[in-house]
């Protein structure tokens, strides 16, 4: 075995990970123990690798990625709060939270909300603690039936690319006294939530052209059509919307 051959083999050797008795490495390592220059080269190579490994390990995934992956498998109808057992401390805590909530909602009700506030609050709420989908649905028809049963109007229009995507379910979020539907979609590996709201609630509702924003880990794309404003949230909503606009497939169902 020449030194150059040994170097090529030892380039793939990671002490502590690769077995030094592995026939592939054993001979090259034996040579490195005897040859001073090769030994120094190996020490330098291992130190270089260690630096790269450490820096690569510092690359962090987006904060919401794990939750988003897990959330997809936790779509179940939640147990109503009145069916859950509560001890005194929990009841006291719940009362305190309720009181605080009342004070906050009273304060909030004194002024109109902006669409930017709505977008951020709803992105947080829709991706909140699992389970995040109240009713499982096979398609948009199921979603509309669920909303009708909850006395929520369903005359909204969804972009075709979303309407053709797999629907997981729907939930209703109470936002400042309004029932806001959130529809959970799955499209091409992306987990997306579409929020539908009455656009007349906001003086600054978005235009027809999707407007993108980022809130913490979540990307949002917002637009208005007819009487509704829409917020699409997910980790990569922007790329999702851009892709279909680029392919000129961002049109409307029906």
């Amino acid at each position, binding site marked *: 075995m020449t030194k150059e051959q040994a170097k*090529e083999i030892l*380039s*793939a050797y990671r002490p502590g990970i*690769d077995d030094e008795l592995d026939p*592939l490495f054993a001979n090259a390592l034996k040579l490195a123990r005897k040859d001073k220059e090769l030994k120094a080269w190996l020490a330098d190579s291992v130190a270089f690798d260690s630096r790269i490994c450490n*820096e690569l390990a510092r690359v962090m995934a987006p904060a919401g990625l794990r939750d988003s992956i897990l959330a997809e498998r936790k779509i179940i109808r939640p147990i109503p709060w009145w069916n859950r057992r509560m001890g005194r401390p929990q009841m006291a805590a719940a009362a305190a939270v309720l009181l605080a909530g009342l004070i906050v909602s009273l304060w909030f009700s004194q002024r109109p909300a902006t669409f930017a506030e709505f977008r951020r609050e709803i992105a947080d709420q829709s991706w909140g603690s699992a389970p995040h989908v109240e009713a499982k649905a096979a398609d948009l028809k199921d979603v509309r039936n669920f909303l009708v049963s909850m006395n929520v109007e369903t005359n909204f229009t969804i972009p075709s690319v979303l309407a053709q995507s797999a629907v997981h379910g729907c939930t209703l979020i109470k936002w400042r006294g309004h029932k806001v539907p959130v529809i959970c979609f799955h499209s091409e590996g*992306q987990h997306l939530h579409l929020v539908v709201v009455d656009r007349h609630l906001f003086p600054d509702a978005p235009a027809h052209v999707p*407007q*993108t924003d*980022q809130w913490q880990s979540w990307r949002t794309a917002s637009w208005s059509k007819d009487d509704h404003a829409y917020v699409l949230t997910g980790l990569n909503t922007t790329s999702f919307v851009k892709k279909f606009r680029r392919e000129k497939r961002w049109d409307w169902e029906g």
Partner: protein
Amino acid sequence: MPPDEKAFEEAVSAYYEPLYRFALGLSRSEADASDLTQRVFERFGEKSGVLRDKAKTKTWLFTTLYRDFLQQKRHTTRFPESEWDETLDATIVELPRVEAAADANTAVAALHALEEPFRSTSILFYLQEHSYKEIAEILDVPIGTVMSRLARGKDMLRAAMDSSHDSVSATNAAGKGART
């Protein structure tokens, strides 16, 4: 929690970060890396057989992600960026990001700048999640090819980092010179 759910959650917790790092190295885009990671777990969730065989889980996840990336790349080649409608794109308003851009440290930047197939091989090597035999299996190449790609990839990486270091040193020296 049902056994499959537990196995799924354990696999996500254990591997979503190395998979994201691999995907980021392949795609060089945070959004695409998140997509690739999400998609591989979506497929993983559908494969109950893989869920039961823990020993195969990790290699299966990395192999599937890599194949998915290659498939996506082929698709992108069929729909090249030149087809992008600039006027349409201009109508999408990008608001400023809340968080700062990811820290681009020299070593990772140099690693991501490597050309394929040296990039994928080197990233799998530096992730320290797989043996060289598993790397060969994931990339579907002979072991000898992994060895030569690693050796060449490492040379390119060193050269890139040295040149980056030299340019930073030169900039610093120029800055000092300008101040004196």
